């Protein structure tokens, strides 16, 4: 794979993550000035996870923790810049990293487990799938949240004064 192909792949991933971040942000009605920063955070986080998983062979949970940390810590300077609390920026940015496929497979395996109670081989297979998918889903969601909220615990004074001295013209 050439460097150009790798770069295009990463940029495509970042672009669609940004679009997803903006859309999921819009559902929560953020201030309009926050959209650019939400898009940047979502793009950075997802691209980092993509690179870690595909080029450095990290597992999804560890890669998500690093992506969450990147989003959490970058949301602090961004928050000062656009006078928004960090939560407003990082929550929509985290959403594109929700492990949808694993969550879906967890649900699907519960259903198939209930449908195939009579056959031991099938029952065991779906039970196994339920636990492996469920564990991945829960760990990824938990690690994403922990990564992004880390700045709150490490910089307790720094993250609570972003909206201070906001210009009146910024209120929108």
């Amino acid at each position: 794979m050439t460097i150009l192909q790798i770069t295009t792949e990463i940029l495509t991933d970042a672009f669609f993550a940004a679009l997803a971040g903006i859309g999921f942000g819009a559902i929560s009605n953020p201030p309009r000035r926050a959209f650019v920063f939400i898009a940047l955070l979502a793009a950075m986080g997802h691209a980092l996870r993509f690179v870690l998983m595909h080029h450095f062979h990290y597992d999804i949970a560890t890669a998500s923790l690093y992506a969450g940390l990147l989003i959490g810590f970058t949301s602090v300077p961004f928050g000062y810049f656009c006078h928004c609390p960090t939560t407003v920026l990082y929550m929509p940015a985290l959403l594109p990293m929700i492990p949808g496929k694993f969550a879906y497979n967890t649900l699907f395996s519960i259903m198939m487990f209930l449908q195939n109670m009579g056959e031991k081989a099938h029952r065991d297979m779906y039970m196994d799938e339920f636990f492996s998918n469920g564990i991945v889903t829960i760990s990824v969601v938990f690690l994403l949240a922990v990564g992004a909220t880390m700045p709150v615990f490490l910089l307790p004074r720094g993250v609570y004064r972003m909206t201070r001295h906001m210009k009146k013209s910024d209120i929108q």
Partner: protein
Amino acid sequence: MQEFKSSQQLDHPQLPAVAHFLGDYAGHLLGCGVHTSRVVRNSKRIAESFNMDVTVTTLMRTMTVSVKPKNLVKDEDGKESAYTIVLDVPTGPILFAHNANLSALSWDALDQKLSLEVLRERFEKIKALPLINPWVILLLASLANMSFCKLFGGGAIAMGIVFIATAIGFRCRQLMTKWKFNHYMVFILSAFIASMLCASSFTITPADSEIVMVTSVLYLIPGVPLVNGVVDIIEGFTLVGVARLIKALLLILSLAVGLGATLMIFKNSLL
């Protein structure tokens, strides 16, 4: 709204007015999806600007706000005067814009010593600011879910199917919310409609069927209550945090019921 006063005459004329303002302010913040420690901090900041101290107790549906002057002088019986109100927490949509702008208002109150009239006026002004047009949100959410499909490895046809299904599912959610349907019912039905639309498209084109099913309902994931719940628990507001997580889990369960109903119907074509 219930009011409790201490038996003695309140010696601080502004106490009730400040308490009522803080009740409205903190209640509104909680209602629009702000995590508890921020609500408490912002309220304390405003009370500080009036040289008062406030204690906010929060539950999911009700809250108590108790305001007392700093440098409190006890009367001869050793009683302190404080003004306490108990109020319902209003429920509403998640409004990050109010979170940011009302936090800024609390800093202005402290830095510029705003009077109560000015505070109230600016509070009402922020609440009345126009929200993003629902059709724009609909378009952005559909694009977001479509991007999700791409991130999971879906092709162009799959992305198109997800875009249309999300748009219709999301519109149903907006309408059902407007018609004041039960919150969980809204999630079950929206998830069912979006996933049914996706699943029925398989009869025409079975491209990336699994990815399409996965993404069809992801626009309903309650990300804000989930993260708020974790933050609240870690910061020591365990009761509210657990309550928020339970609510988020129930919403996810509702989503799963809607999706599960579709899976039951189409399970043979998905295996």
